[in-house]
């Protein structure tokens, strides 16, 4: 099975805001990239962490675990982590795992 490459884009739309745009297959083989990046994302000025999952084609349990890890890291920092975009597939996945009740999801798809 050929997989869509996993990409992470980082932008700073505001001085205290970091936006992560993830795309591709976010799974056991690729989730380590984001996990490794998590500590450096928590810069001193960070107040808001936006995560865009619109381009993510697949998430497995390792990908979910990495998002949970990121959520906890933001909570401890403290910064507010919110999801700003996702597909119905991911919204369903968050619903099955009841993470929709934990995560800050966009109102349109949640």
């Amino acid at each position, binding site marked *: *099975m*050929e997989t869509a490459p996993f990409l992470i884009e980082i932008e700073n739309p505001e001085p205290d805001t970091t936006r992560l745009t993830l795309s591709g297959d976010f799974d*056991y083989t690729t989730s380590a990239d984001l996990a490794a990046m998590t500590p450096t994302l928590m810069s001193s000025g960070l107040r808001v962490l936006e995560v865009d999952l619109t381009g993510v084609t*697949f998430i*497995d*349990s*390792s990908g*979910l*675990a990495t998002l*949970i*890890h990121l959520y*906890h890291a933001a*909570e401890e920092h403290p910064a507010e982590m919110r999801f700003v975009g996702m597909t119905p*597939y991911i919204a369903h996945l968050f*619903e*099955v*795992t*009841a*993470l929709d*009740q*934990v995560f800050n999801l966009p109102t349109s798809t949640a």
Partner: protein
Amino acid sequence: MDSVTHAPSTEVLRAIVEAAADGVVLCDADGAVVLVNAAAREMIPGEVTSLLDRGREPGETYETALGDRLLRVRREIFGIVHQAWYLRDVTNETARADALRAERERAQFLVEAGRRLSASLNTRRCARATAELATGLLADAAMVVLPPGGLRRTAWLRSSEAGLEEGDMPVAHADQVPGLAEALAGFPPVPSRWLDPNQAPEWLLPAGFGPVGHLLVTPLPGNGVPAGALVLARREGGAGFDDETETLVRVFAARAGAAISAAVLYQEQSATNAILAGDLRPPPLPAVDGLELAGSLRAAQQTALIGGDFYDVLPTPDGPLVTLGDVCGKGPRAAVLAGQVRHSLRALLLLERDPEQLMHLINKALLSSYTPRSHVTLVLGAIHPGEGVIDLAVAGHPAPLLLRADGVVEEVDARGTLLGAIKSGAISLRTVSVELAPGDLLLLYSDGITEAFGGPTGREMYGPSRLKTALATCAGMPATAVVERLEQLNSDWLAGGVFDDRALLAIRRSR
């Protein structure tokens, strides 16, 4: 103009013959030597006639040894009186050809060695290939002593005309063979001429081998660790190990050592994986009055991708508890975590049978785990066999599906948070009790089923709706047949593609 031709005089002809690079010897009809040119005199310092074989046909070429030289000789007849022998010293030419042939033989040997050694990841087969390859070109008998690995005895394999023999020996006996203990410790080899073949103990060689003339002991270097040693023996009277051979043996030993150590590592790892995966094997299902149970568990093909799908049916005095879960991640860590969750459940079940309470307890246990990311998705169902009622709790897992006897498929309305994930320890659960009428079936499954990529494009997910459609076609079937059919349809979808772990557990009320 006149053109004048001059026939050469005898003196001129003699001078031409004298100056030729090839040796020329001319005899008369009686065989008496009438002429020997300078080149021939240089080649043959002494008596000439013994080299001249009169039995040869005219024009025939033959080779003959003279001291340490090799001469190529051709006999020719001129007229009825004279016969001539042309001589050429081909010693160097032949030596070059021999050297080339030997070099080709060595290269061929290494190619064959590479081919045979890479064909297996089994330690014994690699050692056997090493011993067998070394017999013949390198030695009359070859013994591979495998690395002791901290044990008191170590295995060996030996190849000779007597065939392949194998056994084991106390590691301490390595001291009896000159150079063997050092080779097993990974020290560089010493030249064969420093090893006294008379010191070779009897056990080193096959029965009836005879006296040893030459011994060569070479370490088999592994990946940073010694991978054993290669002992080569040649019989008394045979050629010794020259420098070329010792170099060849060292190159060969490096290849063999790499192959053997890779095999040792592979076997250690697959033994570990087998132990870990053993915990993930589908358990035997108990017979429950009034219910049919059927399960199927397929682990991902690659051992490094051992996943964490599992299911269990655990009997309690009030009726069985069914569980199906999936732990986060892959590989040995996932296997260990799955084992921990299953054992925790078994222990907790002695005190608590309510699925909702069990979920909270397991969540707390996972959150206090030392291993980061101990996330688990789980379905728990407490069965009341007499009434056909199942109390269900679902945590982070796809909700089970209900197949009614008339073919209608419903998704059970239960949801809950992934276990071991949210640090605050708060999980929300919406539990439900489902009632199975006779012929109804409850299906628990893992996301390996719905997230199987395949179909016409190979990139499409199987998805929950295809599973529901497939399940709807199973009305009236026994539980075992339902599980087999769903697995078959899922495999067809994958069409040979890579699959994740997948688990199915069906509970059908038979009456």
